[in-house]
């Protein structure tokens, strides 16, 4: 049923730390690997080794430049996947009931045998979290690795989403955001975790931790400034070299 549950027992989701993400795309690769080999239709590529490769991914890492009023620009790597919204617009538009939000843990899933591939859920998602697979013609999206997190055949430490398990910088956290005492909820409270496009009222479960303020470099302290000072007022060996070359 594509009506949303009034509330869910848990709100499983991710907390992504934009301060520590180094933009290595390891989460993208591990996500593609796990979700191609396990639950549901594989994530297909077209023309993978040709001129115009295209493929389905459930997680993609953008990079943004943030230019403060004064001071140096900062590069922020920005992994983006399904936010498992409480008020998920992708679910209610689905005509077949293929898209649904689970009552027990709040995960938004697609039942691929019911999906007619109309694409309307992807139109309704502001975040670009859903992609129609080019081969299977069904809608693919992050499952929060539902086939890992409850999988008793895996060792305990692997029962977390593949992207979280693989992140080498500890920028991705997984837990119950509906429980105020969970580690992820405390992290969100402590670091001022934020929603993406809150104005659209989707109430995302996933939260993003903003980059911490960097050490303030004033404009005369920039890394190139000290080199400029050496070039303008050389001393020692470079001063002699400078004088000698001037005379030639």
């Amino acid at each position, binding site marked *: 049923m*594509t009506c949303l549950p009034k509330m869910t027992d848990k709100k499983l989701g991710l907390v992504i730390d934009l301060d520590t993400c180094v933009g290595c795309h390891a989460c993208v690769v591990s996500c593609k690997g796990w979700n191609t080999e396990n639950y549901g239709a594989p994530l297909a590529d077209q023309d993978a080794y040709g001129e115009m490769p*295209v493929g*389905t991914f459930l997680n993609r890492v*953008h990079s943004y430049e943030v*230019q403060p009023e004064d001071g140096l620009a900062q590069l922020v790597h920005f992994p983006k996947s399904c936010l498992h919204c409480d008020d998920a617009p992708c679910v209610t538009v689905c005509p077949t009931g*293929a898209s649904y939000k689970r009552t027990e843990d709040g995960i938004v899933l697609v039942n691929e045998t019911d999906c007619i591939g109309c694409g309307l859920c992807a139109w309704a998602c*502001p975040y670009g979290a859903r992609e*129609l697979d080019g081969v299977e013609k069904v809608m693919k999206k992050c499952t929060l690795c539902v086939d890992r997190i409850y999988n008793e055949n895996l060792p305990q430490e692997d029962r977390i989403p593949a992207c979280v398990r693989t992140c080498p910088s500890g920028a991705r956290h997984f837990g119950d955001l509906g429980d105020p005492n969970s580690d992820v909820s405390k992290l969100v409270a402590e670091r001022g975790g934020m929603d993406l*496009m809150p104005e*659209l009222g989707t109430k995302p479960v996933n939260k993003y931790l903003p980059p911490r303020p960097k050490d303030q470099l004033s404009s005369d302290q920039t890394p190139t400034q000290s080199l400029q000072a050496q070039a303008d007022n050389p001393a020692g060996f470079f001063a002699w070299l400078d004088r000698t070359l001037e005379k030639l």
Partner: protein
Amino acid sequence: MHPAPSVILFTSLSGVGFGLLFFLGLGMPAPLGLNAFIFYAIAYAFAVGGLLFSTFHLGHPERAIKAFTQWRSSWLSREAWLSVLALGMTGLGAVAQIFFETRLAVVSYAGAALCLLTVFSTAMIYRQLATVPRWHTPMTPVLFLTYAVAGGALLSGQVGIAQPVLGLLGALQIFAWIQGDGAFARSGSTLATATGLGTNGSVRAFEPPHTGTNYLLQEFVYLVGRKHAAKLRLIAIILLSGLPIVLLVLPFNHMFAALAVLTHVAGVLVSRWLFFAQAEHVVGLYYGKRG
């Protein structure tokens, strides 16, 4: 948004078809026998033909029957029900008029109402999307309904109604274009709100996540043809509203009437192409492709 031919043909043709069925349902005109057959055949060719085109938009058309299940929440599912009910109800009226030469008033009026509701539900599929600010306005259903009524009046030969409604349609469409051009800016979604990074400074897309294209870019960040948008708008208005009105003012003959229908439908197709091609989805923000 990607202006898929299947969706443009579906919304344009089924809109005209249900518009004609609406007028036939009202008994304007109320033909019997062979005449009724010709009118209803034209109406169903547009309405059913349009609906068939919509299935080309599906990845799995063989499962389309499942789209009838979620009418409680989904406008697309409601549209599926309403279109079948509208076709069925007007079909009953058509059978009575063609084979029994009688008009079933109650059935016909109910069919007419269902036709308008079907067009309304089609429009609501677009109107409900907060992710496309240009569509997320009551103007979307108002426009779709006016398109259907104008096309229906034209095809059913209701010249007295067609003239003012075609004029109204042109005015509403121009208003919707002007209103729509500022809709994205008014929506308040920016790269700053999309990333949450706005408090730290001005945000610029530095590097995309992938070097090639992908489904999202192909479907939502359509850029081709925007440079001719102003010319295409002019062409659309002349074809869908201006020329048909002139042709209807001229002394009536069947040649002019047919020409008015043809130019109107051509204009509807151009304006519907613009409806999709000019619609900006907020996901483009993540790729630095919006204002």
